[in-house]
């Protein structure tokens, strides 16, 4: 078992980007976007020497507040579990970005770069496994507090997590079937292709093979176009696993005060929130890598992009340019996805607890199983027709 030390730079890059940049900025996005959507001014009070920087200093103020706050401990609770629960909540969020590729494969100056920390054969399964452990932080936190609100929150977390794990796993099976892989980099490569949307017209005999208008309408082979239902079901399940509104019944302020983290203060409380915001970034990254084409530019495969730069600047710099463009494209998609998730978060009211359970078991689960069957049928038909 050898350790690949050349992975350290890309690991540090993605880690510092997620923890150091995305996670604090998410607190600002949360405030600013809600203010925009509710027609308020919002998040503009924190200032240093009169510089307010459109509220960007609020994350700094947050951190200072949380670190200097008194760390309280509930009477009669379990001190050990109370202390490790925030860590257990934060670690899965931190390690799950490891399998998400934020760029393709590049060769420059004799070195190989694959922009993913761990290119696992079973990448998506790893993420599902990590996601299923993430529940423990919240479950332990609520139980260790010796508080009935906290305990109720824990019970709701465990029920919700188990319910949505099932449909989360099954809703992406269709995607595995279409791409024929569980490896996230292979999925990214597969999504660089394009397909003719109207190709079926030829096979039905409504147009001759090679008709211009049939060939013209092409879509990139993104997961969202091949598995539209899978996209929405997977996203719903992920938001539910993330415990954010409209699925925030475990922490619903108006019912359970604060749910499982009711007895936490200071930075331990902050760690729960950090985990939640990192999870939002992970969800956006996961959706991008699996359904939105990953790092690739639509209609332009990686090789074409490198070839385009190659004439002007040589092979090595062409690879570097392509890498920069791909990383920027990936994070542009991630940021748009985050805005979309925040849009959902501020638009929908909280579901009632029984509605959450009904949605998971009676709607999403049957739909996701039907999705698998229909995907298999269509794949068989396509194979039959095209040979």
């Amino acid at each position, binding site marked *: 078992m050898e350790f690949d030390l050349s992975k350290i730079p890309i690991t540090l890059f993605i880690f510092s980007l997620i923890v150091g940049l995305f996670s604090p900025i998410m607190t600002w996005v949360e405030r600013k976007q809600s203010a925009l959507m509710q027609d308020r001014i919002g998040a503009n009070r924190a200032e240093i020497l009169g510089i307010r920087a459109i509220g960007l200093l609020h994350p700094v103020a947050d951190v200072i507040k949380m670190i200097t706050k008194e760390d309280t401990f509930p009477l009669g609770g379990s001190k050990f579990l109370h202390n490790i629960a925030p860590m257990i909540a934060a670690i899965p969020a931190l390690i799950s970005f490891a399998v998400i590729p934020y760029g393709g494969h590049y060769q420059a100056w004799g070195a190989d770069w694959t922009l993913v920390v761990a290119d696992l054969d079973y990448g998506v*399964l790893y993420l599902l496994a990590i996601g299923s*452990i993430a*529940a423990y932080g919240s*479950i332990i936190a609520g139980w260790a507090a010796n508080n009935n609100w906290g305990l109720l929150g824990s019970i709701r977390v465990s029920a919700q997590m188990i319910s949505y794990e099932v449909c989360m796993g099954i809703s992406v099976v269709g995607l595995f079937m279409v791409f024929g892989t569980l490896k996230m980099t292979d999925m990214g490569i597969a999504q660089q292709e394009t397909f003719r949307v109207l190709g079926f017209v030829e096979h039905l005999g409504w147009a001759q093979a090679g008709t211009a208008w049939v060939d013209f309408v092409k879509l990139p082979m993104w997961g969202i176009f091949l598995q539209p239902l899978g996209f929405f079901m997977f996203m719903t399940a992920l938001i539910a696993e993330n415990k954010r509104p409209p699925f925030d019944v475990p922490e619903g302020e108006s019912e359970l005060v604060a749910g499982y983290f009711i007895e936490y203060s200071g930075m331990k409380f902050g760690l729960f929130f950090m985990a939640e915001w990192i999870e939002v970034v992970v969800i956006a990254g996961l959706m991008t890598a699996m359904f939105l084409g990953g790092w690739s530019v639509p209609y332009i495969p990686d090789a074409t992009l490198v070839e385009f730069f190659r004439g002007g600047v040589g092979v090595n710099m062409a690879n570097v340019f392509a890498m920069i463009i791909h990383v920027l494209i990936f994070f542009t998609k991630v940021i748009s996805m985050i805005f979309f998730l925040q849009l959902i978060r501020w638009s929908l009211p909280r579901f009632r607890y029984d509605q959450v359970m009904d949605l998971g078991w009676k709607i999403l689960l049957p739909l996701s199983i039907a999705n698998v069957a229909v995907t298999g049928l269509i794949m068989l038909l396509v194979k039959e027709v095209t040979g």
Partner: protein
Amino acid sequence: MTFGEIVHLVINEQNLFIFFSTVAILSALGVVLNLSNTVYAALSLVVSMLALAGLFVMLNAEFVGVLQVMIYAGAIVVLFLFVVMLLNLRGGEMAADRQPFLKLVGAGIVIAATVKLTSLLGAARSNPSGIQKDWMPVGPEFGSVRDIGLVLYTDYLLLFQVSGILLLAGIVAAVILAKQKVD
């Protein structure tokens, strides 16, 4: 000595094996010996499962390792915890229900397992490479998702489907039981 060599000195196959197996055994003991607090016992079970998953990954059985985490650590023990919390058992309420018969069965299983393990260790010592004549060598793809899928859907298709029907029967039974209670 380069940085890579120092890292390899600390994190190598042997040390990882020692780490994972020690954690697995200690936390398994924690499950059995923690009679006063069911939640602690369930949490020890999770740690034990995770350590076992680490051992599976080291044996090239990554798929089994991931399933171990996803299904046992991630779903089944969460269900255990859910039930324990729902009943809100605290401080040895379960201890009164312990049956001497189960203790005897448990002791029997432990003795049988110890005897079997000792004989296996003896066999391993007399034949260190551990390769027997009728054992098939495994390919480089061994343990990958594709390989397991191929074997499951060709050689063991019938068994696979039978176990699926068994699970379905279990689900139907659970639904019927739950319905009866409501009516």
